[in-house]
């Protein structure tokens, strides 16, 4: 019976041997790995250019690998890598996951490293842009992308439906949600195309609706995150407005219907300016304008991406040093080719214009620069994934023609109150 025992021992030892083979030595130059949710070749080329310049001056780092993960399920994939003892050194972090990462101790504090780096100009970072990524005075991730939401308009579809263009509506002082829904409904009725698409909402990504309800002064929860805001009168009014726009005026595509503005299938879409690239060869006339005003006036909503160093990273010190290099003023200009930076000195139409040749200086000024300071960041909370799921499930009954908006929102608050109280 000796052989079976030997085989059993060998089989049990196999994972240990594999693990030993997989581990690297801490001696000598290290390899850093950074996860991103962009596999865009231009983005990766720019990141590699910065990395190559860093490696040339830092013999302790022999390689920096950029590891694009699918955007759908990005945070889940990242946490699975962490759980599997395969954490990257640096990671892009979505804004809705920011509170979880910042408060859990998952990220290395950066303030000392960044402020202590020669020529970093730490005070140049816009406080409104870094707020989500700080706990107290300590910064845990660098908001490499701070991009306001805006509205793209298909002027050809509007003209076909006999509606004024977005620019004309702004000019006449009618750039508000009521008028936009009226124009969207007219486009749908007269051309068959859809009116307004809040991109990435698709009746599941509810946090994208903050681009609408902020115009009513509503918010998902109180500033301290303890009280549900969905049953507030402002939110009820905002979502009643949206419900009517979908089911009565048919200005927005209903559940289970897809429409892509960038393929010419809708008159308006709410999204971030980085999507402008999709319009490079658009066969229709289009415009980019700020979000329409709501009953509470003009407003802005910001989407962010952060860059942090993981506490469980194989090489946190080297990673933090690279992060400081990657986001210094010089490299921040390079990043600004694609991502609006959080540096006050670089929030100019000239810098942003390099990235967005399709957009005019006036558009960038109105949509990005004027809005970053006043923008409200999309909703986020500790335990966001659970809240995300609970809100989605509780909002589902709203997306039927005869829904009782007030009752649905009261039920929603009952469902998420225990989560907010944690």
């Amino acid at each position, binding site marked *: 019976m000796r*052989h*079976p025992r030997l*085989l*059993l021992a*060998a*089989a*049990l030892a*196999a*994972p240990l041997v594999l693990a030993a083979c997989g581990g690297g030595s801490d001696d000598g130059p290290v390899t850093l790995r950074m996860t991103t949710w962009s596999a865009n070749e231009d983005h990766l080329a720019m990141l590699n250019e910065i990395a190559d310049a860093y490696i040339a001056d830092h013999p302790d780092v022999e390689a920096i690998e950029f590891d694009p993960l699918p955007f759908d399920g990005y*945070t*889940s994939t990242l*946490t*699975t890598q*962490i*759980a599997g003892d395969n954490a990257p050194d640096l990671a892009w972090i979505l804004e809705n996951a920011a509170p*979880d*990462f910042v408060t*859990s*101790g*998952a990220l290395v504090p950066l303030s000392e490293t960044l402020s202590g780096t020669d020529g970093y100009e730490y005070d140049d970072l816009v406080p409104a842009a870094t707020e989500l990524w700080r706990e107290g005075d300590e910064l845990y991730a660098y908001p490499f992308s701070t991009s306001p939401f805006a509205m793209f308009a298909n002027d050809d579809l509007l003209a076909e439906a006999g509606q004024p263009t977005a620019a004309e509506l702004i000019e006449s002082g009618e750039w508000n949600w009521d008028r936009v829904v009226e124009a969207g409904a007219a486009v749908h009725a007269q051309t068959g195309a859809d009116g307004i698409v809040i991109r990435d909402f698709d*009746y*599941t990504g509810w946090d994208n609706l903050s681009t609408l309800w902020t115009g009513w002064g509503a918010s998902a929860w109180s500033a301290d995150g303890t009280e549900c805001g969905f049953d507030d009168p402002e939110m009820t009014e905002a979502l009643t407005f949206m419900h009517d726009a979908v089911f009565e005026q048919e200005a927005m595509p*209903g*559940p*289970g*219907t*897809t429409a892509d503005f960038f393929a010419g299938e809708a008159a308006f879409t709410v999204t971030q300016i980085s999507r402008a690239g999709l319009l490079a060869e658009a066969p229709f006339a289009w415009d980019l304008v700020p979000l329409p005003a709501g009953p509470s006036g003009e407003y802005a909503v910001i989407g962010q991406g952060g860059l942090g160093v993981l*506490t*469980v990273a194989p090489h946190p010190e080297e990673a933090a040093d690279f992060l400081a290099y990657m986001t210094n003023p010089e490299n921040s200009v390079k990043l600004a080719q694609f991502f609006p930076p959080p540096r006050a000195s670089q929030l100019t139409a000239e810098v942003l214009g390099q990235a967005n040749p399709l957009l005019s200086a006036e558009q960038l000024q109105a949509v990005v620069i004027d809005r970053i300071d006043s923008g409200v960041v999309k909703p986020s909370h500790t*335990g966001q*994934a*659970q809240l995300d*799921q609970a809100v*989605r*499930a*509780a909002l*589902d*009954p709203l*997306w*039927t023609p005869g829904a009782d908006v007030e009752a649905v929102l009261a039920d929603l608050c009952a469902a998420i109150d225990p989560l907010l109280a944690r």
Partner: protein
Amino acid sequence: MTEADTETAPGREASRPARPSWWTARRRDNLAGFLFAGPQLAGTLVFVLLPLGLMFWYSFHEWNVLAGGFRFTGAENYERLVQDPALPGVLGATAAFSVGLVALNLSLALVLAILLDQKLRGTILFRTIFFSPVAVTLVAWTIVWRFLLQDDGGINGLLSVVGAEGPNWLRGETTAMAAVIVVQVLKNVGLNMVLFLAALQGVPKELYEASTIDGAGAWTRFRRITMPMISPTILLTSIITVVGSLQVFAQIDVLTKGGPGTSTTVLVYYLYQNAFQFHDFGYGATLSVLLFAIVLVLTVIQWQMRRKWVVHED
């Protein structure tokens, strides 16, 4: 004792008693057997038994992935499991899916197998048509159905041709569950159909001839001969289908994400949400233990019941 056991080395004195060689034929055979079974055994140990053991171990811990915390909490996760307000709904959705899937899959597979067992023209073509979805990638199959089931998708387009207005399939609680079941049945019914077909073709024709001479009708022949003779296959397919139905994940993720509401949040999807979306691997492991227990109990029950309704079992 074999001849090899008594062999002596050449040149040794015949008067000395022969010592049995350690390297016997039996040991040679054993080694060969273990070498053949070794890779599979190693794979099972590393990728099945080890994770299974770890799963039980994790279920007694709070594992905060982000903070890197791993703390023994005893039976805390199991207490939470008992008190989890979402769990009854999840188990209800799981039961609804499993019952619907098993009933529809087995009955449809049997009907198709009986129809395609007839000596008619074109049966091979139909067998191929019904079996081909089994060979299609699950996610690709489900994504195509997601488009077909949209409010303005192909199914409602077909219904409108005949003047009917279809529902928004994936947005209604009842229709969403029905849609997920039907999509899964159409994907896999061909496999059970082939198994039933093989079983039907294995039933001795003499039994049918004898019963016909005795005056038995078609229904009596089916009930008294066909069903008992193919009962081992019914047992096999029912176990495979029940276990498979409890493991459904990709279809839910692609078609409904557990919604609308939580109407299609089955146990595996709920487990996935807790472990991989809520970063709560400890509770996720506890839900895995629950799933393991359910599958084990159902399989044991089916296996025990075979004595009653599987003809070849004593």
